[in-house]
């Protein structure tokens, strides 16, 4: 049986062509501590330096045998480019991702996206990082991502303004989301132009543990369709939390694949979406690779359960947490290779 390269495996997956085995890859961050340590970097340093960003991502994939390299890792680039200050936690020894302590926009009326936003630093460093990955690790497909407009709104405004506004100020909410959708489209197109081989739209904060299916249909779905319609394939739509009530609408937004987290009932999603839809995710990024008490055997069993549940790729349901247990992480990827030799619902095998 021919063995495919990581790039071939992922490309064929999106075309639903037969594979040698199931890929292990992600559309969200998967930078890991062992790689950062080996490179001699500190976690807070890797987010705003394109070389460190690229090399930390490449080495994480190489050390553990992932099928793609993903940049960036943090969710603050756009907000910082708009003018907000960020916390990098440079004095902390813990794994702390950058955050925005104070947002300069206090109401939806303040939202004014600069026309050159897609070219501003630090967004521009992601394009540089993609180019470095393409040059230094051409055997890997490069994944990039954008936060969806509702989730991004929480990075530039206090989220409760938007949540309450859904009822009290719907027109303003929609106008705000449209502005952020324009930004999302423009940056996504530049990520693709820089060489991203696939792109994930992460509208994380819109699961039905937050918004009703009706609000999702009225307010979120039109923006998902517009953004995904403006990007080239392959493109993935990811939503965190409870998604079973909206899974069919998610699949009706123009994405090539749907990504969910552990709160999704995979059997129900598969039943609703049928065998031909690419479904990723639903694997617990804390319990299997990170939890101190999880044995290698339990991690292996967890991935077998994930594959048996009907995914088409082993794909973390969120950013991989950097402080993984190395033995568990390696066993997870190895199990994906061996146990994933059988066909998945939407993709056959060579």
């Amino acid at each position, binding site marked *: 049986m021919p063995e495919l390269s990581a790039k071939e495996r992922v490309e064929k997956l999106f075309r639903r062509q037969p594979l040698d085995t199931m890929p292990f890859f992600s559309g969200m961050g998967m930078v890991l501590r062992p790689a950062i340590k080996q490179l001699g970097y500190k976690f807070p340093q890797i987010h705003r330096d394109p070389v460190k960003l690229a090399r930390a991502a490449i080495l994480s994939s190489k050390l553990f045998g992932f099928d793609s390299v993903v940049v960036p890792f943090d969710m603050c680039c756009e907000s910082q480019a708009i003018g907000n200050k960020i916390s990098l936690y440079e004095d902390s020894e813990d*794994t702390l*991702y950058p955050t925005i302590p104070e947002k300069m926009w206090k109401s939806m009326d303040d939202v004014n996206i600069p026309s050159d936003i897609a070219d501003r630093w630090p967004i521009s460093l992601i394009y540089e990082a993609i180019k470095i990955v393409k040059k230094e690790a051409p055997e890997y497909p490069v994944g990039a991502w954008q936060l969806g407009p509702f989730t991004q709104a929480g990075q530039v405004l206090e989220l409760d303004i938007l949540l309450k506004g859904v009822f009290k100020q719907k027109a303003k909410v929609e106008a705000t989301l449209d502005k952020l959708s324009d930004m999302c489209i423009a940056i996504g197109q530049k990520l693709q132009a820089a060489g991203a081989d696939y792109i994930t739209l992460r509208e994380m904060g819109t699961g039905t543990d937050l918004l*009703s299916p009706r609000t999702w249909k009225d307010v979120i779905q039109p923006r998902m369709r517009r953004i995904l319609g403006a990007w080239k394939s392959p493109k993935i739509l990811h939503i965190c939390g409870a998604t079973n009530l909206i899974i069919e609408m998610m699949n009706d937004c123009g994405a090539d694949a749907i990504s969910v987290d552990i709160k999704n009932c995979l059997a129900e999603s598969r039943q609703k979406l049928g065998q031909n839809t690419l479904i990723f995710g639903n694997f617990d990024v804390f319990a299997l690779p*990170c939890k101190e008490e999880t044995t290698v055997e339990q991690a292996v069993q967890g991935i077998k359960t994930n594959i048996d549940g009907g995914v088409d790729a082993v794909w973390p349901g969120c950013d991989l947490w950097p402080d993984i247990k190395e033995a568990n992480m390696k066993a997870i990827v190895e199990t994906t290779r061996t146990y994933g030799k059988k066909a998945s619902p939407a993709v056959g095998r060579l």
Partner: protein
Amino acid sequence: MNHLTSGQANTYGKELASMATRDELCERLKNGVVEYQEDVVKQAAQEVVDNKFDALDAIMNGLAAGMEVVGDLYDRNEYFVPEVLMCADALYAGLDILRPLVPKKKDGLNAQVVIGSIQGDVHDIGKNLVKMMFDVAGWEVYDLGRDVPLEKFVEEQMRTDSEVVAMSAMMTTTMLGMKKVIKMIKEKNPNVAIMLGGAPVTKDVANLFGADGYAESAGNAVSEGIKMIARLRQMQGKA
């Protein structure tokens, strides 16, 4: 057969009338919260004050009872977080008026809680909803805000001698800090109850970290919090 004198009947009639008004006001407070009508809640709360009804009774059997209904609607997927947030605003509109009239306990000490979102996490919707639950229950709440350094939880618990520390994390990447805080607090004071909340926090994680309670999402925090309020109401009813 006993007969009332006209004076007794008059007094009894007034009592009946005021009882009905008390019930009616509680109902208006409750419905105002459920239907997120801040003005209705404010008006009813003011009438509770003007009529010199028991403020704590109105909080528990009006505002808190309303949030119990909200929790039920959330559990049944009829309400979602935007509705819950608006209900919380309505509840606070009433609480701001009624809470100052609740007498302090005789020993001057209410139950105390230290609450905050853990370092690295700037999400605080869930935290604020849990805070509301403690506010309703009349606790002294020491709100540290969000992105709170781990040591700050320990320092504040020791400073205030609070019985409960409640922490929230929205992301797996920040959740692990909770484990350190719990260890630090329990080493110094094993009797402190720790409550965890946030999207990545499961019952398994809470147990593993040594926490005493958990809520997995903002909505779930409300649901769990409301159950706690319901238990408090039952206890109050029995007292």
